[in-house]
C-alpha cells in the first residue's frame, strides 16, 4: 500500500458514500448537495490517478456548472424543502431497481477485476517537477483529437439552440398545454400554466 493507494481509498470511500446518499436521500436538495460531494471527491481521485487537467475540468464543469443547473432546475420546479414522500417509485419498483443495479454492477466488477484487477499502475513520481501531465495532453488534444474537439463545439452550439427553442416552446401552444391548463391543479397550483396567452 503506497500513499496513493491510501489516498485513493479514502477519496473513493467518500465518493461512494456520497453517491449512494445522493440517490437514496429523500430530500431533493440534499441529493443535489451529496452529488456535489461525490463529484468533488471524484475530482480528487482523478488527481491521485495523475490526471490533473481532468480533475480541474471536473471541478469547473461538473461541480461548477452541472450541479448549479440541477439546483436551478430543482428551484424552478418548486422542489419541496425537507422530506418529501413522492420522490421515489413504489417499494416494489425500488426493490427491482436495487436488484437490477446490484446485478449489473456485480457483473461489471467480476469482469473488470478478473481481467485487469491484479494490475498495478505506475502513476509517476509525485514530485510535481519539470514535466507536467498537461503538456502532452494538450499536444494530443489539439493535435490528433482536434477534429472531434471542434465537433464538440458544434454539439454545444446545437445544445444551446435546442435549450433555447425548448424554453420558448410555450409561445406556440399545442393541444397538450391547453389540456393541462384546463385541468384544475389543486395539488400544485401554478400560475405559469394558466397564464392567458
Amino acid at each position, binding site marked *: 500500500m503506497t500513499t496513493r493507494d491510501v489516498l485513493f481509498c479514502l477519496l473513493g470511500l467518500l465518493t461512494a458514500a456520497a453517491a449512494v446518499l445522493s440517490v437514496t436521500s429523500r430530500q431533493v436538495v440534499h441529493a*443535489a448537495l451529496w452529488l456535489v460531494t461525490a463529484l468533488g471527491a471524484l475530482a480528487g481521485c482523478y488527481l491521485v490517478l495523475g490526471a490533473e*487537467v481532468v480533475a480541474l475540468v471536473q471541478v469547473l*464543469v461538473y461541480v461548477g456548472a452541472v450541479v448549479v443547473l440541477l439546483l436551478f432546475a430543482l428551484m424552478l420546479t418548486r422542489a419541496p424543502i425537507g422530506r418529501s414522500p*413522492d420522490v421515489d417509485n413504489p417499494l416494489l419498483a425500488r426493490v427491482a431497481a436495487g436488484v437490477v*443495479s446490484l446485478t449489473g454492477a456485480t457483473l461489471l466488477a467480476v469482469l473488470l477485476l478478473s481481467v485487469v484487477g491484479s494490475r*498495478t*499502475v505506475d502513476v509517476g513520481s509525485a514530485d510535481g517537477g519539470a514535466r507536467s501531465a498537461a503538456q502532452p495532453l494538450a499536444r494530443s*488534444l489539439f493535435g490528433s483529437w482536434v477534429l472531434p474537439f471542434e465537433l464538440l463545439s458544434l454539439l454545444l452550439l446545437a445544445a*444551446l439552440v435546442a435549450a433555447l427553442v*425548448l424554453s420558448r416552446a410555450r409561445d406556440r401552444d399545442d393541444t397538450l398545454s391547453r389540456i393541462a391548463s384546463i385541468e384544475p391543479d389543486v395539488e400544485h397550483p401554478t400560475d405559469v400554466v394558466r397564464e392567458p396567452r
Partner: protein
Amino acid sequence: MHLWPALLLACVLVAAGLYGVLARRNAVLVLIGLELLLNAANLLLVTFDAAYADRLHSGQVMTLFVVTVAAAEVGVALAVVLLLFRRRGDVDLLTARDLGEPRDGSTGVEVSR
C-alpha cells in the same frame, strides 16, 4: 498503485447511478443518477489511461469529451424538465404519460393524475 480500488469505485458508481435512474420519480433526481453513470465511465477511462500509459492520452481526452457531452445533455434535459413542469405542474415521471402509449386505446393523450 493498485488498480482494483478504482475499478471497484467505478462499479459502485454504476450501481448508484442505475438505482437512481430506475428508482426515482422526480425527473431532476433521475438526471442525478445519469450524472453518476457518466462519472463511472469517466473514472474507468482515466484509470485505463493511467494503467496503459497511452501515448495519445486517449482516456483523458475522451473524459474531457464525455464531460462536455454531459454538460450539453444536462442543459437540454433541464430545458425538457422545465417544459414538463410548465405543462403539468410537476415533474413526476410516474404520472407524466402524455407521450406514453395509451392504456385503454381510446385516447392518445392521457392526463389522468
